[in-house]
């Protein structure tokens, strides 16, 4: 079996998340170097605060300021920081119960080594230089042996409260399409389209995914299909997608390649958009250096009979 294909795949998304009143007050507070908790009906103070009591599900809205100093309740030494973590030098992950709070906040502790960290140690917040209203406004915690920090007297009311955060995420993958799709992509290098036939129902799937969705059995027998095919259905695209250099309107169609039992989809060119029709016979147009057909154009043959492709709709 030839080597399966692999390629880097980066998934990146900047989620914009709205904040409720409690989260907004907490994160705005961090921007202003104030830490707020929320009090529960049974008198506990939750930091970081949540909008609903995790025990009773009560609505929680009573904000209360807590100290910027606190006590480590558990820790773990991270000798090899990873991308995105608060510090680039070795640090301790810590849960810290801030003075006045009954629950603990997760963050990083900047300490010279694991021997300098223990449960019960006193720490204080090191604020980030630039603060925007995010959990990262706490740069990290640092060891501290002084008096508990004084409160600022904040009521939790701020000018210009933050209403949302942008939670950027990036994950890196090495994607492999597996055996069947590797064979398909490799055949495209020679400008051939190769599907796979189901050993049970004899249908030919293009692109092949290694299984017959009807029979639920592996497909392996390779079958070359096309290059010509028939438009089975289509739509007219009128809105231009970001970064797309194709002029609208254009036609996107399902195309049943000759010999295939599943339609591919591709763009139709070489014909005015309003003259594309079901049954239109088309062939691929390759451009130099392309790894798949740029689009399909009419062959000039008579249209296919509806009966010839109705099973593929």
């Amino acid at each position: 079996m030839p080597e399966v294909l692999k390629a880097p795949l980066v998934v990146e998304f900047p989620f914009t998340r709205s904040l409720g009143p409690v989260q907004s007050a907490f994160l705005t507070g961090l921007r202003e170097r104030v830490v707020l908790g929320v009090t529960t009906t049974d008198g506990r103070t939750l930091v970081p605060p949540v909008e609903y009591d995790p025990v009773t599900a009560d609505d929680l809205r009573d904000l209360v300021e807590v100290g910027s100093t606190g006590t480590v309740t558990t820790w773990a030494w991270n000798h090899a920081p990873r991308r995105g973590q608060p510090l680039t030098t070795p640090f301790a992950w810590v849960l810290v119960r801030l003075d006045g709070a009954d629950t603990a906040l997760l963050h990083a502790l900047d300490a010279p080594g694991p021997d300098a960290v223990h449960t019960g140690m006193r720490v204080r917040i090191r604020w980030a230089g630039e603060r925007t209203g995010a959990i990262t406004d706490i740069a990290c915690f640092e060891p501290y042996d002084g008096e508990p920090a004084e409160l600022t007297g904040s009521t939790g009311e701020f000018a210009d409260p933050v209403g949302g955060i942008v939670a950027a995420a990036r994950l890196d993958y090495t994607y492999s399409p597996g055996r069947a799709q590797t064979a398909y992509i490799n055949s495209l290098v020679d400008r051939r389209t190769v599907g796979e036939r189901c050993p049970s129902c004899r249908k030919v799937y293009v692109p092949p995914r290694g299984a017959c969705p009807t029979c639920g059995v592996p497909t392996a027998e390779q079958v070359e299909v096309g290059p010509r095919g028939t438009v089975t259905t289509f739509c007219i695209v009128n809105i231009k997608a970001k970064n797309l250099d194709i002029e609208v309107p254009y036609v996107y169609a399902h195309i049943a390649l000759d010999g295939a039992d599943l339609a591919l989809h591709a763009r139709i060119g070489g014909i005015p958009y309003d003259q594309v029709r079901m049954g239109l016979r088309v062939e691929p147009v390759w451009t130099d250096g392309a790894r798949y057909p740029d689009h399909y154009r009419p062959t000039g043959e008579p249209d296919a009979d509806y009966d010839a492709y109705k099973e593929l709709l």
Partner: protein
Amino acid sequence: MTRDIAVVAFAQTDVLRTTDELSEVEMLMPVLHSVLDRTGLKTADIGFTCSGSSDYLAGRAFSFTLALDGVGAWPPISESHVEMDGAWALYEAWTKLLTGDADTALVYSYGKSSPGSLRDVLTRQLDPYYVAPLWPDSVALAALQAQALIDAGDTDESALAAIGVRSRRVATLNSRAQLRGSLPQGDYVVRPLRTGDCPPVGDGAAAVILAAGARARELCSRPAWIRGIDHRIEAHALGVRDLTDSPSTRLAAERAGAFERPVDTAELHAPFSSQEVVLRKALRLDDSVRVNLSGGALAANPMMAAGLVRVGEAAARIHRGESDRALAHATSGPCLQQNLVAVLEGEPR
């Protein structure tokens, strides 16, 4: 409960560090065929199909739809999916059979962790406001829990090491497991957890078939009857929870009837050695119970399938007559956030 429902067949793949040459459906299909073959059922005979997987592992939206090709989903089948471990898909299938809408169910789940960096991928399941922006990885969070246990006097590093050693030693009898035999405890990954305290990262799939009442007896000579099953969740915020305990596991076990009579076998989904300490305490398992004879998650932890494998392993022991009453546990989320417990029984021999 008006109907008795049993696990009647189980199959799983070898769990491997990478399965580059296979797409998800290519990895899954042999397991689906294997589990169907065990009962003689065909896809068309199955009343309900439910799967578990995660788009974040695949890096692709709606990735489970492609895996459906391996089931034979045309003509249309009755199907559902959970973005979770397959143990929760099994729970959904069990409730479906309870309603009487179906007599048989196929449950499968799979995960390929190899394309991405699992420790980073799992950070995306955390609270997006207060926690995920810090990118605390799965080992780091488990290490916080381990240190809390050590501080509480519930365990120490050598006791944790012994759990990893035992898991991989018994896994020598499990040809599907990824890590088997004696392995060095290794260096700290995130202290106090060492390599040996952490699960291997691997790709794999599992499938079970459930059947109700008389149908179960037709399909299996000794069905593993589900006497109870329940799942519970704890607060999302780690700092709210007592990490040395697992009240959600205890409650799920109680509701599943686990404490009514002793079990002889337990399959615990404890990806980290420290979590086995928590679970044994929550489930009141003493040395009379055979725990994780499969090697457990420390020997093979295919994401989204490892919990279903626990149910399957427990059921398979009953099928083979090696257990009469077994407990199966599955977890999801950081530090045992969500827990499912099933109690399985075989009829007297």
